């Protein structure tokens, strides 16, 4: 029982960052319909930027997180502007190939810049863990959960309660009509891609100090993000948030009670099972996909 409650707490903390990763991708893959293989690289970029600002430059931890998110948004905008804007309206395979190309370039630029050796980011928070009954959590992880919940809430408000959010929703429902109503559709495309990329970078910046930072850390992150998006239903932000927590629980319970070697396999098994039995995801309205 004690062990179970510890697993649940661990899953809750991972779930927060998975949710960020998933919400970021659901904006790009679910709403813009771009099979974005660079998402994991933006996650890695966030972690490297965190290393650069917090460890090399020695800036404040939270300021570094903010800078990492800004860097992710900047790179996301560049990708959208240079690769996707000229190919707007192209079929899904074409954009997917472009994204695979961009993914290879980004990953190897990271490898070239930072080298293949894993980097660790020391945490400024107290070493002594927070102990509640049988459960102990490091302060770093508590902070990670807090920041990710804040960012999830902020994104939700941005999409659902602001004029910009309304313009985004209008653009992806019916771009032509939105343009007629005076929405700058091109700007909205770039903004949405940048926002999704920024959330991916945020997840990387938060998990970088928890684990270590390596050039290939983005590969699994991309695939897990796809699992979360499919689990939650394409373009469904609440679904992606819940999907992130569900994936974290599946991994944690799977690793704890089945085999730790198969922790990373859980996401893929979930994708296969969900697509076979409920391909529209668990929280989406019905839609033709086959």
């Amino acid at each position, binding site marked *: 029982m004690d062990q179970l409650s510890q697993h649940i707490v661990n899953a809750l903390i991972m779930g927060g960052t998975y949710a960020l990763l998933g919400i970021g991708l659901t904006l790009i893959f679910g709403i813009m319909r771009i099979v974005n293989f660079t998402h994991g690289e933006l996650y890695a970029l966030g972690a490297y930027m965190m290393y650069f600002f917090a460890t090399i430059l020695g800036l404040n931890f939270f300021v570094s997180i903010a800078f990492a998110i800004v860097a992710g948004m900047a790179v996301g905008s560049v990708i959208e502007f240079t690769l996707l804007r000229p190919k707007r309206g192209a079929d899904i395979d074409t954009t*997917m190939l*472009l994204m695979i190309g961009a993914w290879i*370039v980004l990953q190897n630029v990271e490898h*070239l810049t930072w080298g293949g050796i894993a980097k660790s980011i020391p945490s400024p928070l107290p070493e002594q863990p927070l102990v509640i009954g049988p459960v102990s959590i490091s302060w770093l992880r508590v902070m990670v959960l807090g920041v990710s919940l804040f960012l999830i809430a902020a994104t939700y408000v941005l999409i659902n309660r602001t004029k910009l959010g309304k313009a985004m929703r209008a653009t992806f429902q019916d771009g032509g009509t939105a343009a007629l109503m005076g929405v700058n559709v091109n700007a909205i495309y770039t903004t949405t891609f940048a926002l999704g990329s920024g959330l991916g970078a945020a997840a990387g910046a938060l998990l970088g100090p928890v684990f270590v930072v390596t050039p290939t850390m983005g590969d699994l992150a991309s695939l897990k993000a796809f699992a979360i998006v499919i689990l939650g239903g394409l373009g469904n932000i609440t679904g992606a948030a819940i999907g992130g927590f569900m994936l974290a629980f599946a991994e944690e319970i799977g690793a704890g009670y089945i085999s730790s*070697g198969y922790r990373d396999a859980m996401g893929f098994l979930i994708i296969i099972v969900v*697509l076979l039995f409920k391909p529209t995801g668990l929280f989406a309205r019905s839609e033709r996909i086959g």
Partner: protein
Amino acid sequence: MKRFLPYLAVAFFASVPLWLQDQYFLHTLVVTGIFIIAAMSLNLLLGYTGQLSLGHVAFFGIGAYVSALTSLGFSLSIFGVQITHEPWPAVVGVILGTIIAGLCGYLIGKLAFRVRGAYFVIVTISFAEVVRLVSLNWVELTNGPLALPGIPPLTLGFEWTGFATLWGKGQNYYVVLATIVLAYVLIKRIVNSPYGRAMIALRENETLATSVGVSVTKYLVLAAVISGAMAGTAGGLYAHYIQIIDPMVFMFLNTVTMVIMVITGGKGTLAGPLVGGLIFGIAPVILRDYVGPEVQWILYGLLMILIVFVLPEGIVPAVERWFTRKTGNSAAKRSALVLESSKGARS
């Protein structure tokens, strides 16, 4: 001229081991040839049925592992039942690897073709990742990250002719070349048969093809079985040539390499994977004198983006069109016209 081109190409490549002194380059050609077989199998799915499978390396790896384990022998216990397998000849391993990879193609085809587009891509990636994790964690069978060393080389021959063990690069080169020719002829015959036409019809317009009675599942699964089996053969040849395999064969980058080969050469053309495969198989050897592996990968990524922008159909169709314009051959011009008009209808 065009009719004799395949024969000339085969004659040229058959002569290579006779005059090529550089053993390392010959090794590169053997590995390139193996990847070309895999790329050709991917082209059947990607080029002719229009389904982008990004888990193709799974079939390659399954072929490699099945073939290696068949020829090495293994012993493991499942639910208390002890299973021991005595080593079999390497050729049997390659055949079994082909069959089992084909069976996996059947299962994955049956499952994954229930969805399309981006969903299909993600199911295939997930399948490859699950297989990779199994190969990494089922240590009793696969030896996990410690790799399977000492895989015996291929042995060819019959009782009455005596057996020859293929230790050398030149001998393996001819086996790979023969397999490529076989795969080329097989794909050519499939594509020009009613089965191939059904696959192309599904690629061009699935709704229309279904409405005139083309069975979607039947033809797509058939393509997946043949494609998977062919990739399995390539994997088997790889295992017996390199003689050691580890879970790294399942790397996603290997799938990406195959995709780049097919796209660059020209998807949906018979010669596309051969041209793309030769370029991307040999380029690393020439480039490695000048730049490190990371820069090479960056160049690959940029080239892939460039191809999508500049030559979206690939090199082979572009060269064909250029050649037609140059020679002014009326028959070729007519076929090019038909090609253009069918393109127009597609877009």
